[in-house]
């Protein structure tokens, strides 16, 4: 399933809404999650999972082609942990 199919399904279930409003709603949800993480916050959706930010320490990397050492700065990366209910559902347990 891709974003547009998700919008389509929600629009079908809500015939009183314009498709462009459904698009805005779906975009708002995903944008809010990215926004929160870019401010260093967690987003916890019980039963589904939690989005959080993990810190990667700076390290000395190596250019695999030349073997040259390079400094890799500390950075923050997005992380998702699956919720218990969804994990169980994937395995047909709920």
């Amino acid at each position, binding site marked *: 399933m*891709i974003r547009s199919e998700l919008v389509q399904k929600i629009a079908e279930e809500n015939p009183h809404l314009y498709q462009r409003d459904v698009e805005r*709603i779906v975009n708002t949800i995903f944008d*809010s999650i990215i926004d929160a993480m870019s401010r260093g916050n*967690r987003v916890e959706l019980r039963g589904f*999972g939690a989005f959080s930010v993990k810190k990667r320490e700076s390290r000395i990397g190596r250019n695999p082609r030349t073997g040259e050492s390079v400094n890799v700065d500390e950075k923050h*990366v997005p992380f*998702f942990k699956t919720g218990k209910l969804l994990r169980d559902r994937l395995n047909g347990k709920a």
Partner: protein
Amino acid sequence: MSEQTLTRMDLRDAVYQEVGLSRNESAQLVESVIEHISDTLAKGEQVKVSSFGTFSVREKGPRIGRNPKTGEEVPIHPRKVLTFRPSHLMKERVAAGNKA
């Protein structure tokens, strides 16, 4: 900056402020989005949200695990796990926003 946790309520408020719907209906739409994604994944199908990321289901084979406390061997059955691969946009925004 102290870390905060956002929940469904915050997403509902964001939707409520963006579109002229009631709080109740906004909450239902947030739930509906989460449910469609979950249902699709539960069927073993991938969910690709452009400029957000991709959720995919991976099969893990059986292996022998060990109870770390007792050292006892326990079989771990084959199972399905979910992986999330963030989009470039998400990675960039998260990296830029948290820069020291």
